[in-house]
């Protein structure tokens, strides 16, 4: 992974000192609420319902075991002993004190971490494919480019006061696991006709109040022009994005109102003015790439017979292998998902003890590296096949081996109204109700791959619009109701979910899901996933079943 040099370290150290002084001035009454708000947001600090919330950046989702131990330490020392992994590969703490924030940031800086630009109307933490470097379908590892973008965007003086937040995602694989279609800018490493690798650039995607899928602004840009092209897009957005209405301020609205052609014309005109001055050196790309060189895999590793025997005799282990373990590009290695979806635990939550345990297991079995995913799980990407059984036992002992990846029980959800002041409805308790209803593993597995995503309000942090089943919390005269949508996804192509009909009360959410599942089980043909059946039969049969008057 990338290791800070003296400049990177100085950057985070100076930032801590700067924020410490800003916090001091705020507490002394020298900075207004409004002024401090802007500054604290750019350091990841929100003021939420019960307490401040601190969002820590995990650049492109990659963590070392040492960093994970520090996250555990922070949870223990400054919070209530847990943290929450988000749908943007970051971690949030729900109970820190404002006064402690500078100390927490100093602790983070001591392990090359920060909370810079994890909120505010600036360029946010860059996200990526959680399997980068380990997946077989990769054209090139996206992480070096993520790191280059991280550095370019950090303290970018021109783009700190954009009309609204700005999110960039990068993927290097032929299967998009970074949801580039729903980002302000999506970058896909692609090969052009002459075999050269560069980027397809997408722009104007996003969820929230007005969900829109991104469009291609440029099918191919050479690597040396990556940063100048990003800078041109950001400048056009900074100059022309709406500032009169925060719900219309995202770049997606600008792209929609101008149309992609006119938006492209403006960007290209700006880009031609700056592209020669700011070429990205091939040597710099090589320098950063060296940090992501292939790991020292054991030569000649292969699959272990004993593991195959265990799988044949231990049904629980076999289930875990089937659901939580994926193929690796190197023979004899596997990708292991650590599910943060144990029944009775909010999706994405993890205790300090579990964090320490994950760090320990990463050291022992996966080169000391851990990834966070958009689905609020963790991954050990580089595990030897022969270690799988002992790793499974250790994870199971920490309740981190729920064999549910990709199933309905692997649902993602935002913190909802239990923590977030934007939310209209709770999501965590609904997630727990769903987990309980679908606890029966055979039933869960019979339902196959199902992406269930829930948000507590239309800001859509739970990505409900791109769930095979999406659930959106709405407020009706102080009561929490839930609106379903079906058939959404965002992979290489994407589609926003179609609204099922009127919302249902909280007590009916699990029943409604069950009815949807009944229709699916009735109507599916061999091998069809829920979303495939939906595609084939449309929304009507689901509607009829959910809203039928005769039970």
């Amino acid at each position, binding site marked *: 992974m990338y290791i800070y040099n003296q*400049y*990177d370290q*100085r*950057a985070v150290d*100076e*930032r801590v*000192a*700067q924020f410490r*002084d*800003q916090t001091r001035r705020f507490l002394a009454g020298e*900075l207004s609420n409004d*002024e401090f708000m*802007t*500054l604290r947001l750019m350091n990841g600090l929100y003021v939420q319902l019960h307490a401040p919330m601190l969002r820590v950046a995990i650049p492109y989702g990659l963590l070392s075991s040492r960093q994970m131990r520090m996250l555990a330490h922070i949870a223990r020392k400054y919070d209530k002993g847990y943290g929450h992994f988000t749908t943007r590969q970051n971690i949030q703490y729900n109970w820190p004190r404002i006064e402690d924030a500078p100390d927490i940031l100093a602790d983070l800086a001591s392990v090359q971490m920060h909370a810079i630009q994890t909120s505010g*109307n600036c360029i946010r933490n860059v996200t990526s494919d959680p399997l980068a470097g380990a997946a077989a379908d990769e054209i090139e590892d996206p992480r070096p480019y993520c790191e280059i973008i991280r*550095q*370019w*965007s*950090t*303290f*970018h*003086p*021109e*783009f*700190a*006061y*954009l*009309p609204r937040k700005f999110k960039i995602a990068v993927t290097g694989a032929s299967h998009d696991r970074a949801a580039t279609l729903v980002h302000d800018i999506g970058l896909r490493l692609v090969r052009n006709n002459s075999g050269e690798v560069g980027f397809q650039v997408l722009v104007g995607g996003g969820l929230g109040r007005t969900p829109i899928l991104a469009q291609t602004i440029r099918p191919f840009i050479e690597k040396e022009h990556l*940063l100048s092209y990003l800078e041109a897009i950001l*400048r056009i957005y*900074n*100059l022309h994005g709406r*500032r009169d209405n925060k719900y219309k301020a995202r770049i997606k609205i600008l792209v929609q109102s101008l149309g992609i052609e006119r938006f492209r014309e403006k960007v290209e005109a700006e880009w031609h*003015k*700056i592209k020669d*001055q*700011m070429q990205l*050196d091939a040597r*710099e790309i090589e*320098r950063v790439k060296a940090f992501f060189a292939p790991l020292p895999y054991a030569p000649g590793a292969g699959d272990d017979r004993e593991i195959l025997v265990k799988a044949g005799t231990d049904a629980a282990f076999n289930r875990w292998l089937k659901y939580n373990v994926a193929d690796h590009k190197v023979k004899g290695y596997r990708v292991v998902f650590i599910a943060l979806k144990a029944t009775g635990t909010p999706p994405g939550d993890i205790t300090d003890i579990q964090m320490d345990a994950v760090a320990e297991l990463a050291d022992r079995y996966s080169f000391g590296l851990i990834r966070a995913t958009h689905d609020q799980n963790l991954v050990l990407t580089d595990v030897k096949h022969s270690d799988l059984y002992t790793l499974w036992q250790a994870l199971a002992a920490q309740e981190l081996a729920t064999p549910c990846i990709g199933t309905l029980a692997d649902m993602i959800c935002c913190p909802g109204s239990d923590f977030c002041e934007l939310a209209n409805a709770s999501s965590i308790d609904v997630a727990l109700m769903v987990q309980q209803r679908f606890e029966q593993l055979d039933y869960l597995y019979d339902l196959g791959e199902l992406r269930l995503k829930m948000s507590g309000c239309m800001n859509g942090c739970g990505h409900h619009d791109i769930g095979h089943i999406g659930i959106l919390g709405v407020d009706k005269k102080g009561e929490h109701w839930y609106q379903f949508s079906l058939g959404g996804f965002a992979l290489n192509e994407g589609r926003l979910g179609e609204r099922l009909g009127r919302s249902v009360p909280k007590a009916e959410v699990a029943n409604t899901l069950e009815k949807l599942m009944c229709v699916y089980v009735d109507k599916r043909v061999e091998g069809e996933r829920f979303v495939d059946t939906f595609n084939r039969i449309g929304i009507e049969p689901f509607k009829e079943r959910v809203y039928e008057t005769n039970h």
Partner: protein
Amino acid sequence: MKQIIKQRRIVDDHWTLVAPETEISSLPSGDIIVPLRLWQTHRSTLEQRSGKLGVCLTGDDDLEAIAAEVTRFPVIALSFPVFRDGRVYSFARQLRQQYGYRGEIRAVGEVLRDQLLYMERVGFDAFEVHPRQNIESALAAFDELTVKYQASSDEPRPLYQRY
């Protein structure tokens, strides 16, 4: 006389910033900075004045409007109606890097201590610090972050080319 920060020093300032709604008939004497609209509608009158002339733009204005004649203004003021309106950061960069403007770029409006550093990086070199800020203590803001990863108006090369 009012004081501003210019090139990181506190100096007396003799320029008068003319308010947006001011009529051409009621301009003050001396060196003045006029809104773009006034310059566009009363150019010849303004050119005949004895004092020096600067122009002031807000994010609503089109920077292209002065593209051909930036060098005739010793001062170009860029206005922050609120500190969060970031459009003129891009104006400052375009002025320095695309229009080749070498005169003074002055931040006016809600100009606060905690934004000075980035303003300087994009090309501002003079700051009419908002009256509610202490101008002396604001000077410290420029040195708070010394690592400049990316090229900007103050630094033509990204950090990796400067190791």
